[in-house]
């Protein structure tokens, strides 16, 4: 029981995820069938069903989360997304100039859509009956989703870690649970350190592969150029590089996710994330293999497996009771409440 407000000190509250692959498989396949039969229209309702299941299966300190997304709002967002993406692709086929115009238009609209869907996602999530929220302004959204990325492109991507830190800081400091704000204190330096470490490992592995693997391939090439097995060994070397990429990308994912959540707080309560490289790589590789081998039928199991690992590696170090959060004040609710009518969820995933 966590009702007792008195114990001082820190209590570790791990997130648990009780969804199972076999139950999600049933939800997924029914969603899929109805989405196909209705030519995609049902996919908005499918998303609501899926999120309700996942959110209700996510527990923290004995209570679960809840998803309140409205299917019609999701459908509107999807129609907007499809029109934009299709319009962009068609424009690009017709003429490069019209394609460029469409690209500029997309760049101008996207930050606004991303901002709206950030609001949508948080506003429609609740825990213990209290809704989350997002206070960031459209102006900030344009700064972080348009101007900084443009600036970053001009500096040849050297600003990427800085941009990543600013983006996460924006997202996390502007998010709130009821009236309680989240905070974020990872430094730009720690992002650069993580990116550099990742690149060092990536390049070291590639160099090792090229020296060891390709060295022997080229040696056999030079010795016997007509050997039919040479194509096999080249494919093997390329395969080894792909395998290395698939092994090392999860490393980046684990390092970044741990960095971000280990520096996020909700008032005095600190988050902690303990993903490990080995486990993440194992799950991602076997998921990929499972999906290919089963022609896609493993997809829902893969989804649950990955979510379960990621969520359960996260905990809240509760500093005192979790009973004392309050919903946003009446003023805040009506201010955001009005804006909620035109919220869109700009996301195409099922």
């Amino acid at each position, binding site marked *: 029981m966590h009702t007792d407000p008195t114990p001082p000190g820190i209590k570790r509250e791990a997130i648990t995820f009780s969804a199972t692959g076999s139950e999600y498989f049933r939800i997924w396949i029914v969603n899929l069938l109805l989405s196909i039969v209705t030519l995609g229209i049902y996919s908005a309702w499918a998303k609501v069903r899926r999120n309700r299941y996942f959110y*209700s299966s996510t527990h923290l300190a004995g209570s679960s989360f809840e998803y309140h997304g409205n299917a019609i709002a999701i459908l509107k967002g999807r129609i907007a997304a499809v029109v934009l993406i299709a319009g962009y692709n068609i424009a690009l086929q*017709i003429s490069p100039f019209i394609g460029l115009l469409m690209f500029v238009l997309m760049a101008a609209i996207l930050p606004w859509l991303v901002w709206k869907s950030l609001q949508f996602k948080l506003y429609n999530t609740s825990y213990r009956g209290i809704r989350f929220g997002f206070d960031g302004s459209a102006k900030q959204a344009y700064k972080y989703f348009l101007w900084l990325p443009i600036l970053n492109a001009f500096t040849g991507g050297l600003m990427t870690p800085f941009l990543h830190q600013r983006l996460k800081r924006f997202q996390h400091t502007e998010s709130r649970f009821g009236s309680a704000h989240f905070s974020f204190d990872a430094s730009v330096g720690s992002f650069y350190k993580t990116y550099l470490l990742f690149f060092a490992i990536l390049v070291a592995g590639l160099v090792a592969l090229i020296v060891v693997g390709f060295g022997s391939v080229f040696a056999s090439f030079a010795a016997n150029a007509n050997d039919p097995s040479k194509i096999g060994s080249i494919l093997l070397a390329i395969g080894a590089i792909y395998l290395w990429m698939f092994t090392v990308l999860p490393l980046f994912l684990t390092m970044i996710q741990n960095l971000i959540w280990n520096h996020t707080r909700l008032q005095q309560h600190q988050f902690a994330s303990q993903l490990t490289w080995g486990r993440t790589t194992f799950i991602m590789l076997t998921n990929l293999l499972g999906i290919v081998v089963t022609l896609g039928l493993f997809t829902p199991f893969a989804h649950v497996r990955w979510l379960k690992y990621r969520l359960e590696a996260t905990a809240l170090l509760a500093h005192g009771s979790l009973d004392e959060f309050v919903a946003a004040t009446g003023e805040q609710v009506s201010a955001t409440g009005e804006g909620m009518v035109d919220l869109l969820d700009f996301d195409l995933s*099922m």
Partner: protein
Amino acid sequence: MTDTVSARYFDGQTSRLYHVTLGVDGDQAVLAGDIERRCPLAQLHVSERTSHAVRKVSFPDGAYLEIADQAAFNQLLHASGHRDSLVVRLQQSWRATLLALLATVLALFLCYQYLLPLAAKGLAYALPPAVERQLGQGVLELLDDHVFDPSKLATARQDALRTQFARLSIPDGAALEHRILFRKSKIGPNAFALPSGDIVLTDEMVELMPDDQAIMGVLAHELGHLQRRHLTRRIIQTSAVGAGAALLFGDVSTAVAALPPLLLDLKYSRDVEREADDYAIAMLRHNGIALEHLAQVFVALGKLDHGTPYLSSHPASAERVARIRAAQ
């Protein structure tokens, strides 16, 4: 008053947890324990049944109950006349799920096999030629820069071939505007049609052909691609398949999502070659040219390639020769 179930109540204003029991009294839900509350059943919303997520009952004012004891709660719901929706019943039954799986595979197959080609065809024919001409604009310039040199064929020979083809009559009404171009190529014998209406024939292709009638066969085949709007249809189809695959698998991996469009595109391109062959057969027959000339095109090409029919973009040459000879 019915049996009660224990539940956790949140008031929607604070994160405070109240331990309560939920019972039903007539058409009212009754809460007792840390807090007392009554609410008409009709105003409550019950979350859908699943076996692994907690059940929730929400009140109109944002307050809600979490119920962990599924069995007892289901009994209570049953007693109060609550019924699961059709979708929930489908999702909870393995038999229904398996049927849904079969129906999904069938629906995907039917969409891909019949609906998509039909829609792409309708859309491609509905597009005004001017728009189609815009597609792939600049492709010829790009090829001229990197792959092609000007043709070494004598201008008189080029014009003779053009005139000969222009004299042939079209099997189905009017021919789309087209232009025959000759190029010297770094990639060997080849012929293709661009949506701009340009039919490109490489010098190597002209030399490979045993006689002029065979060249007419090649040109008829390429005109078939234009007349049947193959490139436009292909763009529409691959975009649709790509979007579908991204929706199905994009969540998990973009690498996986890229696979089905690639494989299906290879199959599409073989179907399209057959359709263009059929057009060439019809055109030659219409003009009284023996189909054996067309068959010789693929005999000559067959000596060059050794592709497998499953993963290649064109049907095997021997297969095409057999089809053309069977049509005689």
